[in-house]
């Protein structure tokens, strides 16, 4: 199991970073997974053990998504309230003025690009990415299947990645 873990480690980080939306979080999760794997010792497992590895990893991720939902809300509230200054220069906490301007410019390009796409594609992407609905929630909102949503989001991302730096 430990060897399998070693071989799969980098790919596991990629998988979990997609869902957790953070490479650092995924690294952390994969380290927790290592401790679990190590605790198993040289346990005899069916096949090559990758099924077990995946299930263990998946459970850890679900735990983390639950606590992320709680911590996220708390952190967001806190951040919203913090402002600071250096000398006489006011600093809107995390995002600097330039960050906001650059972000807005990218968003403008994003919006312009979305307008050139089929309406369903643009709508699915907006609901998922900007309004933060999950694929399943977006599917319900638009009355289409989840796989249709995934195709739309994919198509929008491809178009955007071609347009944005």
């Amino acid at each position, binding site marked *: 199991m430990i060897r399998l873990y070693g071989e799969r480690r980098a790919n596991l980080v990629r998988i979990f970073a*997609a869902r957790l939306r953070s*490479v*650092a979080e995924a690294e952390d999760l994969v380290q927790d997974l290592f401790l679990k794997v190590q605790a198993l010792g040289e346990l005899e497992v069916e096949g090559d053990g990758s099924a077990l590895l995946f299930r263990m990893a998946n459970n850890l991720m679900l735990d983390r998504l639950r606590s992320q939902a709680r911590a996220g809300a708390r952190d967001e509230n806190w951040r919203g309230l913090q402002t600071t200054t250096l000398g006489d220069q006011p600093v809107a906490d995390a*995002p*600097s003025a330039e960050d906001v301007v650059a*972000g807005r410019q990218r*968003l403008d390009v994003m919006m312009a690009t979305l307008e050139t796409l089929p309406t369903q594609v643009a709508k699915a992407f907006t609901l998922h990415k900007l309004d933060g609905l999950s694929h399943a929630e977006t599917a319900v909102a638009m009355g289409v299947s989840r796989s249709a949503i995934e195709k739309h989001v994919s198509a929008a991302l491809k178009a955007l990645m071609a347009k944005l730096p």
Partner: protein
Amino acid sequence: MTRSQTDIEVAIDWLVLLQGDTVTEDDWRAFDAWLTASPAHALAYDQAQAFDQRLDLDARLVERAPSVTATASTNVIALRPTRRVWLWSAGSAIAAAFVAGAVLLPGSGLLGGRETRYVTGVGERRTIALEDGTRIELNAASRLTVRFERNARHVRMDDAQAFFDVAKDSRRPFLIEAGDTQVRVVGTRFDVRHRDGQVAVAVQRGLVEVRPASAAPVRLRPGQGLSHVEGQDDARVATVPVDEVTGWRQGRLIYRDRPLSEIVGDLNRLFPRPVKLADARAADMRLSGVLIVDEQDAMVGRLSHLLPVRTTTTNDAIVIRAR
């Protein structure tokens, strides 16, 4: 259509699938096989993922940016959480004074400032609450001195690593001296590491001005970090994963491509039994990964799983050599 564009498109399909609510074991196997098939695939996937995270960040950035009407009310509410931190700090100030071995020295400062010295031993970690509401989390085997004056708050870091949560006071800037480098802030959260002649600063929140001797001052924003070798003329500013740099606060040492010699240095600040490197080949090995801080034997054991090394334990030392 070029080859790499195709890879990117496939990578985006995978990314979206993996972000879905139900990922199956078959998906995982197929993705794993695709990644393994070509290094270009992993590269394309990492690019797609970075791009996607950038979009998420943009979306949130614009949401959070204060609008003109929101600013006034934000400032009013801002007092609340700050005050809560103050109250909380007051209790731990008393505790910290006992446990961190605080030594009060007679007012030696020219302006009559009072100097307090804080020391942590090997394996000891302490939170210090200062009278202005600032909190300092001191990592193991660290020494620093705090001196408050009417116009400024001073901290001198000897060999130390600390995370600062500085209370806002625009009339008294917070100045940190770490070797030949000066850090200046008003109110913010950041990490400073001054070890083995190197200074590293990583900012979590707010704005921090860093001035290494003989280099131009640099203003760091959240997510940015500066590293500097004492005595040299330059400093390197880069985007740093601040949560990783400050992992020690949660008992996690997180490394990205760091030499084993540095990791052994960190271990020796955590446990009294010394860890030694037997050869230069082992010292130069690079590690990326997370080490959870628990028992020394267990941590060294995990190192030998992550790197091609062998460890020998005796009563008074642990020796690591290349395998």
